[in-house]
């Protein structure tokens, strides 16, 4: 039988063998952490601790007034040494709180646990999710409480838990499912209560048979009514819109959001964080990070405190090999290249991938031979070669007309291009330009 999937897409090597069978290991506490005040999509937090102040694990160090925002917490017990701008793993420099750990103790400042969440009010649960600083842990880091409170005119009738982990190398969600199935399912049940839906699906790519089996067992053990859907292995299966198509055969309209077709999608890690926040009152201060690739000596899945510098984690995994050439945060298809190993783990850090692959220089690109491979790869049904070219020559309006803004930047086009043209890179630039153009047009109109 053919497993459900979406149309088009690509099949990169998955490189998951490094870590897919290694249990998640807790790391020793870091000496210091750097808590960025912006780790999510939305308004940055304002700092509410002072230099020299003592903080406990789980204490709020930054929060924002805005609705689309998410507070950040100290992930260690220690002293605030500095509040300043440091390099962020997403490239720019951002305000961060530098906290020096104080001796060995790890004193938690917890919120009141909501043990009987079935009886709790939906608003309270969602307020808790916001207070715990939970954002989408799959990589986009969109504040979860916003996702779970869709506007009234968008009724939600289905929830999908995203266990695809379609990015090569990464195994954080895979291991979480194998080891923490019950916690994940409880989080899913809480989320579904908040949304008020009864249809729950767990989408898992078929290359994780152990996870599929464990989840099946956990669903029947817990008496849940969720459906575990095993999906074809294809990138980007875990992209929200693709996943909704695969699982429910619904297409999110162009420019729309999953809620437009009555669906909310959350990541495995997010569900786990929800359980912790509700049942134990624990804010989001740690996450599973896959440290992997042939550029690191001992690839591992680790449970790391948010704010731990990459270098600490890499050193605890044996350090970089001599051949290591690139380090990225996230998977190789959409991850960000890192130049400074002092950057901290943030809520969206699903993996630290170190490879000896030097990549290919942009000037080695050949001309487009119009083979159309990118067209057959693009899951959004765009013409990557056309819009990349239009973007390259600065024809922003024409690129916009050809739907450049629909691009989800999955990188499938650049991955398959036999000429090695940096297609998605040009398209990203084009999207920025279209955004600028539209803002300018709006300003001129006003």
């Amino acid at each position, binding site marked *: 039988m053919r497993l459900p999937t979406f149309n088009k897409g690509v099949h990169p*090597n998955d490189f998951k063998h490094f870590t897919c069978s290694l249990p998640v290991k807790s790391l020793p506490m870091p000496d*210091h952490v*750097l808590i960025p005040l912006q780790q999510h999509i939305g308004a940055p937090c304002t700092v509410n601790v002072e230099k020299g102040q003592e903080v406990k694990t789980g204490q709020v160090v930054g929060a924002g007034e805005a609705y689309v925002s998410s507070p950040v917490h100290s992930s260690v017990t220690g002293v605030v*040494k500095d509040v300043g701008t440091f390099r962020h793993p997403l*490239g720019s420099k951002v305000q961060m709180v*530098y906290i020096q750990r104080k001796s060995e103790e790890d004193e938690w400042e917890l919120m009141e646990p909501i043990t009987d969440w079935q009886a709790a009010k939906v608003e309270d649960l969602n307020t808790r999710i916001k207070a715990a600083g939970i954002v989408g842990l799959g990589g986009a880091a969109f504040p979860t409480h916003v996702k779970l409170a869709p506007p009234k005119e968008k009724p939600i009738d289905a929830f999908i838990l995203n266990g695809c982990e379609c990015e090569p190398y990464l195994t954080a969600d895979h291991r979480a499912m194998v080891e923490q199935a019950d916690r994940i399912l409880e989080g899913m049940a809480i989320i579904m209560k908040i949304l008020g839906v009864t249809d729950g699906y767990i989408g898992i790519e078929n290359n994780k048979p152990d996870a599929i089996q464990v989840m099946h067992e956990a669903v029947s053990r817990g008496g849940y009514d969720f459906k575990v859907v095993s999906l074809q292995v294809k990138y980007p299966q875990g992209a929200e*819109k693709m996943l909704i*198509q695969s699982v429910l055969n619904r*297409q*999110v*309209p*162009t420019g729309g959001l999953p809620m437009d077709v009555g669906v909310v999608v959350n990541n495995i890690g997010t569900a786990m964080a929800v359980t912790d926040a509700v049942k134990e009152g624990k804010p989001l201060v740690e996450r599973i990070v896959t440290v992997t690739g042939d550029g690191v000596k001992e690839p591992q899945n680790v449970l790391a405190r948010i704010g731990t510098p990459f*270098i600490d984690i890499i050193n605890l995994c044996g350090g970089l090999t001599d051949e*290591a050439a*690139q*380090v*990225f945060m996230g998977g*190789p*298809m*959409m*991850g960000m*290249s*890192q*130049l*400074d*190993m*002092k950057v901290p783990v943030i809520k969206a850090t699903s993996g630290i991938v170190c490879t000896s692959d*030097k*990549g290919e220089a*942009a000037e080695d690109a050949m*001309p487009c*031979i*119009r*083979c*159309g*491979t990118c*067209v057959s790869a693009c*899951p*959004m*049904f*765009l*013409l990557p070669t056309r819009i990349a070219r239009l973007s390259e*020559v600065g024809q922003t309006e024409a690129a916009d007309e*050809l*739907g450049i803004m*629909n691009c989800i930047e999955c*990188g499938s086009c*650049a*991955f*398959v*291009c*036999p*000429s*090695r043209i*940096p297609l*998605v*890179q*040009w398209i*990203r*630039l084009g999207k920025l330009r279209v955004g600028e153009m539209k803002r300018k047009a709006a300003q001129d109109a006003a």
Partner: protein
Amino acid sequence: MDEEKKLPEQPEQPEKPAAEAAPAPKPKPKKKKPKKDPRAKLYKPDHLLIMSSSPHLSTVDSVSRIMWTVVIAMLPALLMGVYYFGWAAIKMAVTCILAAVITEAAINRLKGERFTIKDGSAVITGLLLAMTLPPSFELSGAVIGSVFAIAVGKHIFGGLGYNIFNPALLGRAFLQASFPVAITTWTNPRTVDAVSTATPLGAFKFEQIGTALTDLLYGNTGGCLGETSAIVILAGGLFLIIKKYADWRIPVSYLGTVFVFGGITWLIDPVAYPTPMFHLFSGGLMLGAFFMATDMVTSPITSKGSWIFGIGAGILLVIIRLWGGLPEGVMYSILLMNAVTPLINRYTRPKYFGEPRA
């Protein structure tokens, strides 16, 4: 003007961190900032990392891999040509390939660009041209055709990827216009001397003589070097399709249209018009359908476009064969569809994911 000049430089933007990557660690010790930076002790820049913009993976397929695979896929047809026409075939192929490669190198030199011979596209052009010429054709003429194919067919448009027409076919069209008699003088296979004979298509068109289907399949007929045996061309073509280096939609729609359209005319008048099987296996149709119409550069990039391309070429082919002045129409049917490929691309944009069906 100024603005236009700036554009080529803006590409740097998405990879901006790349520029910073190398210098970043160096200035730090000089500034003595580490004392203020409480994290300095942790930072040993023993690794200079490469910065790039995602994706950080790519397939193994590359332009040269595709091109050389096409060359390999054409070898069986070439060997068949050697079997039927002997030395003449070898000489023709070597001459055309050499002429094409030398022209490519000379033009690279003239334009002051990297040598592009290794990508294999010039070899394909030379080989394809050789396949479309009669084995008795003058070698000097073949050289002219190759030079024209590369220089005018490809480089005038800007080189690989920018040409509108299939270069080999354009070269052949040029030769057809220049040497109309020589290019339609055919030799019988397995003979040494150039006793002129008719191709199956010519025989049917001008003398109403049919040719046995088995002869067509195995290539035991007069014709161009590479177009005699349908079976080996089919094998090479299927190999390319399995490797996904040729879009299956083009040969399927091209051959399918010829079969259906040719079949309709045959049903109307079985005496005046040849059978659809004869259409399929005679002349250069197989070679054209699998190796020329599927040329990536000059065929549409969308799948709907590929169907239109194949159907259009099929209709043109039958019209030329049955009612045109020439016995064979593969070359012009493909060249004409090449010309409209940009238009096809424009009007066959796939519906975006989630775009409402109009």
